């Protein structure tokens, strides 16, 4: 088939992965890594203009278009960040060249897997891709091979595998539900076909399937009580991976959930998926909010805040309706940008302080003004304070919910307040107060960080109509 953006987003990372696996030398590979992600981003953007027909395996529509662009963009900025970050890791000898090579190859594999999962039109293929992404990240989380890193990787691996298994069972059930209607064979696993005829599927089977899918992919999303792998994986892996995990992989898993939610929504007799998602979302939100208070490790802190926000997003999609869905999409985008920016900052902060322990940090806005203030802005944004984008989405979620389900909104607000207080508590001790830790000059790449924060700020004040129309269209799709 002819080369188009779709093949691009899959082909480029695959090729790059192969190359990077072979090439030695940090400088070259780092640059190549950035180059590859740039190309992928360009291909993704080209999807705006030329969009291939959905086949049995691949599909590009507004929904996953959003995700693909977001993924490739954050992938690109993260690769820029990782260039400087990994360089520093090499200098201090935390990583050896072979591992760096491995790291870069895996990075591209991860990109490939995530893109594949997004553009897959076949629920089986999607499952395979997500499994691939999981395994890749497992390997990268364990890359430092310290005790904690291996432990985190192992935890991630085991829980992830169980999640994968549950998701597969759900997938099989969907097929079983589809088979009588669509007939045997590939057709019964092609999402476009499924969603078209979901109305006549067996509801009970669909319900069962959704339960398994919710738990299976929910493990990846990091919803409580399936979240256990997430904080450690974020904390022990290299920071670029933490950024990608929080910023992207969670979204990909959530995207899978959304696809199946649409499937259920299309079937009148099946149970509404909303309540389940709402419940899990609120549970994650409140739980993670309380977990913020006792964190000693800065990366684990923000990992929990990711859980919190995944909870909010799941809640929003669970509520459904054009307004809430729009808010959910917006929130997801904003969270990806903000959280990865925060992890960029945190990575450098940890490097200059030589530790991730919050107790050893202090007065950062004084010792490293740029880092400190960027971190502060990031936290302020993630805490949902204006004029940054997350405020907009939280405004929409809360206000639209309160008119429909006052009690839910009250729980939501409660969680938000608790979470905000927890985050600020930590921020105070990190960014303000008497400076602790070394005053050594930071060799950091600020561009990705600033770019993300700038985008979030702009989105908080002004959203281009095109984007809005797109989001609204997608929100409509989600029903």
């Amino acid at each position, binding site marked *: 088939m002819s080369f188009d953006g779709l093949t691009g987003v899959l082909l480029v990372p695959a090729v790059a992965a192969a190359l990077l696996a072979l090439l030695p030398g940090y400088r070259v590979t780092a640059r190549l890594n950035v180059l590859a992600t740039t190309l992928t981003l360009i291909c993704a953007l080209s999807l705006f203009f030329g969009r291939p027909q959905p086949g049995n395996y691949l599909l590009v529509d507004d929904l996953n278009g959003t995700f693909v662009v977001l993924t490739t963009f954050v992938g690109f900025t993260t690769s820029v960040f990782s260039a400087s970050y990994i360089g520093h890791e090499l200098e201090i000898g935390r990583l050896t060249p072979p591992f760096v090579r491995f790291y870069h190859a895996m990075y591209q594999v991860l990109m490939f897997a995530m893109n594949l999962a997004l553009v897959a039109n076949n629920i089986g293929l999607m499952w395979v891709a997500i499994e691939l992404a999981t395994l890749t990240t497992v390997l990268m989380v364990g890359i430092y091979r310290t005790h904690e890193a291996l432990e985190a990787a*192992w935890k991630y691996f*085991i*829980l992830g595998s169980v999640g994968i298994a549950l998701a597969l069972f759900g997938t099989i059930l969907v097929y079983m539900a589809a088979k009588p209607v669509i007939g045997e064979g590939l057709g019964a696993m092609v999402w476009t076909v499924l969603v078209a005829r979901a109305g006549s599927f067996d509801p009970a089977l669909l319900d069962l399937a959704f339960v398994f899918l919710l738990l299976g992919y929910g493990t990846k999303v990091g919803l409580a009580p399936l979240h256990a792998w997430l904080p450690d994986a974020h904390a022990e892996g290299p920071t670029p991976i933490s950024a990608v995990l929080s910023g992207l992989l969670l979204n990909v898993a959530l995207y899978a959930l959304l696809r199946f939610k649409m499937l259920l929504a299309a079937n009148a007799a099946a*149970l509404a998926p909303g309540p389940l998602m709402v419940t899990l979302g609120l549970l994650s939100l409140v739980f993670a909010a309380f977990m913020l*208070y006792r964190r000693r490790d800065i990366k684990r802190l923000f990992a929990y805040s990711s859980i919190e926000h995944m909870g909010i997003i799941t809640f929003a999609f669970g509520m459904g309706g054009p307004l809430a869905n729009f808010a959910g999409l917006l929130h997801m985008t904003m969270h990806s940008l903000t959280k990865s920016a925060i992890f960029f900052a945190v990575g450098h902060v940890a490097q200059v302080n030589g530790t991730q322990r919050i107790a050893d940090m202090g007065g950062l806005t004084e010792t490293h003004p740029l880092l400190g203030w960027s971190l502060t802005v990031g936290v302020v944004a993630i805490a949902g304070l204006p004029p940054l984008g997350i*405020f907009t989405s939280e405004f929409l979620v809360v206000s639209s919910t309160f*008119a429909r389900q006052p009690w839910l909104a009250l729980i939501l607000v409660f969680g938000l307040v608790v979470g905000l207080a927890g985050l600020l508590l930590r921020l105070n001790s990190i960014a303000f107060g008497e400076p602790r830790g070394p005053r050594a000059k930071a060799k950091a790449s600020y561009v990705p960080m600033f770019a993300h924060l700038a985008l979030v700020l702009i989105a908080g004040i002004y*959203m281009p109509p095109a984007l809005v129309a797109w989001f609204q269209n997608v929100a409509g799709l989600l029903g």
Partner: protein
Amino acid sequence: MTLTIVLACAAALLALAAVAIATGTAVATARMIYGGCMIAAGVSLAAALLHLLDAAGPESLALPLGIPWLGAHLRLDALSAFFLIVVDLGALAASLFAIGYGAHESAPGRVLPFYPAFLAAMSLVVVADDAFTFLLSWEFMSLSSWALVVAHHRVPENVRAGYVYLVMASIGTLALLLAFGLLAGPEGLYSFAQIRAGHQSALLGTFVLVLALIGAGSKAGIVPLHVWLPLAHPAAPSQVSALMSGVMTKVAVYGFIRIVFDLVGEPAWWWSIVVLVLAGATTVMGVLYALMQHDLKRLLAYHTVENIGIIFIGLGLALAFKAHAMPFAAALAFTAALLHVFNHSLFKSLLFFGSGAVLGATGERDMEHLGGLIHRMPQTAFVFLVGCAAISALPPLNGFVSEWLTLQAVLLSPQLPSWALKLLIPAVGAMLALSAALAAACFVKAYGVTFLGRPRTPAAADARETDAYSLAAMMLFAALCLVAGILPSLFIDALAPVSNALIGARMPAQIGAQWLSIVPIAASRSSYDGLLVFLFIAGSGMLAAFAIHRLASDRLRRAPAWDCGYPDSNPATQYSATSFTQPIRRVFGSIVFRARDQAVMPAPGDTRPAQLKVEVRDLVWEFLYAPAVDVVALAADRLNRLQFLTIRQFLTLVFSALVILLVVLALWS
């Protein structure tokens, strides 16, 4: 057109903030920034004044910002114009003050960027015309002021104050968010125009009122939501303290008025009871708290709480009268409240400027380390005295006028049909009088201990008079306090369009009254003429002075103080702030604060000095906030155990989740 100018000024301020980030932090730059702020505020002030005075109709404008399909709606009506005047006047003076005061700012880099942003946010709040824009500016206002509170972040108290402040502010914002969620309904009609159009049910209105009280009240500092205020206001640099206390709390009042008087629609009669009870408690508690302080800026902050209480008493009365279709009484109460908003913004800013000048000159906020400043900083001492007299509601200054009007509104309560209100309102009036008297006591203490007597520390002994800019700012406000006191009729008439818009009635025109006196209802009922009282006092005082100096002696001799024959050169023998309030602490504090004084007297022959131990407890914090904090801590500790499970136990979690869901599924049908 006016609105455009106002917005342009706000934009200019934001631009200034950006400039401040870019440029350095030299004193010259700081002056430039503050000067810029002053100009912007001045222009915007002029625009708002024109709009209010020629009673122009509302102007509105929609920008393609914020929520896309909604856009940012902005509107300038009488109410906005009035509060815009308050904001800009405060901003103008604060900037002028800061041109001089900012010179000895230790961390200009942490003040300059946020100061203009803070000003811009406040003026945006009052012109916002849809829920999103309103809340955005509202919370941005909190955020920028938070940054200013933690400007001196090396002092742990400041960081803590900022923390409490921002958390409380967010709680308030979320409460308002919920309120707007109710008003906007499920289909999300966020613009105020749409909200006004859709009339709300009584029950819904009640929820909105409660949420508005929590939201706007926490910002304004209504007891028991005031806890952040005395922490945050003093922590900021003085010009910012002045803005937060004098202006930002008024923006909060604006939020309350906008929601309760404008958006919700017709009030239920008993809403006023809630408001009045809270307001009365706030008034008395605020001044009692203030009396217990010996930190000058914190004392002033607590007085803000008191005055907010007075304002809300006026608003509560207005609600009561409005609900019982007594428009003229409502107009009177409402005007009184608005006038007090204006007056308080004047003298509270003035007082904070003064405390800033003292802080700059001596490095001290604790009154126990000050004293005798009237000799070292005479001009500051004079303007501060004017401020004290004004806030203590002494004629012929402005504080008295608004409290007098409020009392006149209280006296209209017998015409109300409902018994509850008939019995409640006089009690509230008594509270108002009580707080006025206590305020006078408090400011005798504040002024007497800080400026009079003998210096208690070297720092106070060799203080220097503050700079010209600061003095100019203070003089300006002192003059305004006097003008507003002796010519209140001008201000009352200027407020007519506001009460016309929100109450549907206005106070009778005052300009016509003889000798510029104010006559709320009828001359036979009550009237007051600040100008005449002023002239009388001045005249008879001068007459007495003239007569005595001419006919009797004008000789004068300096000698040591008499002090009943026991003069003691040690300044520690003076009355201190703590000892001054000891009787009041004993009368009121023993109940309200469980206050305990105990004098530790060493045995004869023991060389240790005697000590006075004073213990004052903040029951509101102890019984409301401390428990909440404990609960959160407890929950955090309990849940934190989940971080330390084994993989198998985590698997168990997943497994049980699965089983539960399956069971639910099985039981579904």
